[in-house]
């Protein structure tokens, strides 16, 4: 720039530049189109999201409301059964599995009978088989 006068002249000419007359209507039309598109797709999207949420929530609730024997239901162990695990508590009684709802009573360790093992038939080696010898 040679001097400030030149710069002022340039600035004045620059500020004469205005946006095209149709720009504001064009922007507002585009904004309106975008908003209406959102409205048009927004409702089905919201409905789809709600259905998807129901598809997850309803089975979960039904699962938790099913009968007592449902194995997914959280087990309730009486506090008296876990005394002793807590420091300072004198008595210790391991929980009886039979008390846990939904589970059949298991036989004690002594009641368990070791199943008889069947005698495995000896594998007959062919006569031609010779025992390998170490050299």
């Amino acid at each position: 720039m040679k001097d400030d006068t030149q710069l002022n002249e340039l600035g004045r000419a620059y500020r004469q530049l205005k946006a095209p007359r149709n720009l504001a209507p064009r922007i507002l039309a585009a904004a309106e189109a975008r908003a209406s598109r959102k409205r048009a797709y927004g409702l089905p999207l919201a409905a789809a999201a709600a259905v998807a949420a129901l598809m997850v929530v309803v089975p979960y609730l039904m699962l938790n409301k099913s009968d007592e024997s449902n194995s997914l239901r959280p087990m309730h162990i009486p506090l008296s059964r876990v005394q002793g695990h807590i420091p300072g508590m004198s008595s210790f009684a391991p929980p009886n599995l039979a008390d846990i709802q939904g589970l059949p009573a298991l036989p004690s360790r002594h009641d368990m009978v070791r199943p008889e093992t069947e005698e495995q038939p000896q594998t007959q080696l062919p006569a031609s088989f010779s025992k390998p010898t170490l050299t």
Partner: protein
Amino acid sequence: MQTEADNELIRRFQGGDASAFDIFVRRHQDRIYRLAAVLVKSRADAADVTQEVFLRALTGLKRFGFRSQPFTWLYATTKNVSREYNRQDKGVTVVPVESADPRPSAAETMDSDQAVRTVREMVSGLPERQRDVVLLRIFEELSVEQTARVLGCRPGTVKAQLHKAMKGLRRSAADSMSE
């Protein structure tokens, strides 16, 4: 540039008044269009950039927290969108270099197109912060305080950057004239 009026418009817009957005667009479209015209390569691109800036404003200003000026948001978005446009055009659009001397004499009346090209050429060699200061303070005639608020810096920084920028511009003008 009336920040309070802008803030009021945005509050109304956030409250669901669509006409507030209409007024906001009409208040700022010329300035955004001019800045975009300097930052991109053609007036058609400048119009597209301006439209995109206001469409982003449609969603962005709904969450506007009034921690800065609305024009700060618009200017930052204009720079971002212009950068995206220039990146897309890279290697595709060839900008013809003006054969005539882009610096007109003071007596010469220049049209706005020519002025934009001259401004673009002037500021293209400046560092970004100096370019921002020159565009806002010199060409958009914002006050030092307003420029500082838009750029999120102190008025002293604006003055220092402006001083450096003008020094650089005078030097490059002198160099090109001596060639």
